[in-house]
């Protein structure tokens, strides 16, 4: 396996001392790998993603991201680490409504170092939004908003992209467009962690892990094909179970 960029060991997250959202999850992600985190609603997928993204801290266990033990960092250090290392894409896009597409991307630069309008514009052109730079989110379709969010996540050249159900709110046409972008990022060597409940989306990843009630059931080795416009989608899955 290539060098690990993420090593999570025995990760547990409890809420109010009762609800165990994650139960001793151990996972490693190689640099340049596309890992899909799958499972039904409430299985702990987003919880795992939030811990890796340094948005939350585990109740127990450890996470090392790019050589940094992030589970031991204070809030300010986690914020700085996330800013410098991770790009996050949300299901609900979470764009700032009063900023244009260009300004939303510049916002990520602003918090990182310095806003660069030309660089931000170039990022939006790369995701096919050259004619939408000065539109506010209310003037963009769902797919366009998610592309803005992708550009925002990529602008600071993160080592890791974390995406939580990035196509969950999109129609099939826009979903295909977004997944195409992810495939191109992956081909460029970007490390991607993508949460999805959709096996068709998960089938595009190098590897899939399956969570159920906070515990890990790993699935790996998928036969899949990329799908184009109008092509009926289908795939065959191999299953190998590794109880957590």
């Amino acid at each position, binding site marked *: 396996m290539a060098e690990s960029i993420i090593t999570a060991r025995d990760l547990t997250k409890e809420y109010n001392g009762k609800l165990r959202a994650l139960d001793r999850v151990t996972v490693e992600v190689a640099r340049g790998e596309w890992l899909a985190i799958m499972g039904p609603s409430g299985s702990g997928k987003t919880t795992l993603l939030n811990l890796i993204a340094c948005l939350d801290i585990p109740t127990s266990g450890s996470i090392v991201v790019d050589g940094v033990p992030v589970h031991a960092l204070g809030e300010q250090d986690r914020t700085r680490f996330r*800013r410098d290392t991770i790009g996050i894409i949300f299901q609900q896009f979470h764009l700032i409504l009063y900023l244009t597409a260009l300004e939303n991307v510049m*916002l990520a630069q602003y918090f990182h170092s310095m806003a660069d309008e030309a660089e931000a514009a170039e990022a939006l052109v790369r995701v096919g939004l050259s004619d939408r730079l000065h539109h506010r989110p209310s003037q963009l379709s769902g797919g366009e908003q998610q592309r803005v969010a992708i550009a925002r996540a990529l602008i600071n050249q993160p080592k890791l992209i974390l995406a939580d159900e990035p196509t969950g709110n999109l129609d099939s046409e826009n979903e295909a467009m977004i997944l195409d972008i992810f495939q191109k990022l992956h081909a460029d060597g970007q490390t991607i962690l993508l949460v999805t409940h959709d096996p068709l989306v998960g089938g595009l990843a190098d590897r899939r892990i399956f969570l159920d009630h906070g515990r890990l059931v790993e699935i790996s080795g998928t036969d899949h094909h990329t799908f184009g416009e109008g092509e009926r989608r289908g795939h065959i899955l191999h299953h190998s179970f590794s109880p957590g």
Partner: protein
Amino acid sequence: MTLRILWASITYRRSRVAVACLAVALGVSLPATVVGLRGVQAEFERGLQAYGANLLIVPRSGSSLDEGSLALLNRMIAEARLEAYAPVLTLMGRIGERRVAVAGTRFSQARDLYPWWNVEGAWPENNTAALIGANIAAKFGYRPGDALTVRTPRSSVSLRVAGVLRTGGTEENQIFVDLDAAQTLAGRSTVLSLVQARARRSRELPSLTEALAGAMPDAEVRTPLQVVKSEEVILGRLQRLLLLVSGVVLGAAALAVFATMAAAVLERRREVGVMKALGAEENRVVRLFASEALGIGLVGGLLGFGFGLLLAEAIAWQVFSALVPPSILSLLVSLVVGLGVSLGASLGPVRRAAGVPSVVVLRGE
């Protein structure tokens, strides 16, 4: 980029921002009015002081008062420390067989000192004319233009009635003649019974009293305590009233701004969560929102200065027929109060919102 974010945020929610600015402006306008009216305070004092002298100079027992000792008073007039003064000589005379109280004075000076005296006819313009108190005019049947002769054991003077005096006070029982005529009747030139004066500013009375007493060792300098105290009380009460009302209005404005900002911050919790998820540290988010509050405070402060100036002008014009020039102090007070109210009302809600973990907010909680 900061200005760009602030401008976009403010224009996106312009109606809510406008409400917040107006709340700050209304709160700021009263303190701005109070400060602006300082320029007309002198007019107010003059208005109050038109109701009589507030300095009385009388000879000490066994001494006399001389016109020659009034040089200091003339200097005080020139230095604008005194508004006016009038020398007075009082004596008893006779018109026919009837005794009358006579007061001699310099009419031009008396007119300055008592602008509220109501004269039916005209003020005397030479030393053969007299002002007759209304009660005496009624008793003797005198009208403007009538002739009369006032006698004392030493002398007599023939006079013409220039006007009938109505004051509502003891002056209506006196005949006012030119000081020279009174001194002729008294048989003593340059002698005075008393000098009445009015200070330009009540707060200078102690220093004026001290200076006059020092220059006129044979005289007693008195301030009619009731008048002085009344002026101080009225001015003080007006200022305290304005300050109290300002405080209440400012408090209400702060509450309005607090409520507006609290509601706005609550609506923007998601935005705060996104910023933190993108890597903004808590202090940076607070600074961004605080900058917005400062912008509201600045605009509200400027508007409040404008409102305060208009209100001060309206009050000054209505009450004193005077205009108040815009003052730098009023502008500074408006800006400081506006910024303070806006920032103070916003920081609490903003800090609370920024303290909520972004993972909680982004979950939709």
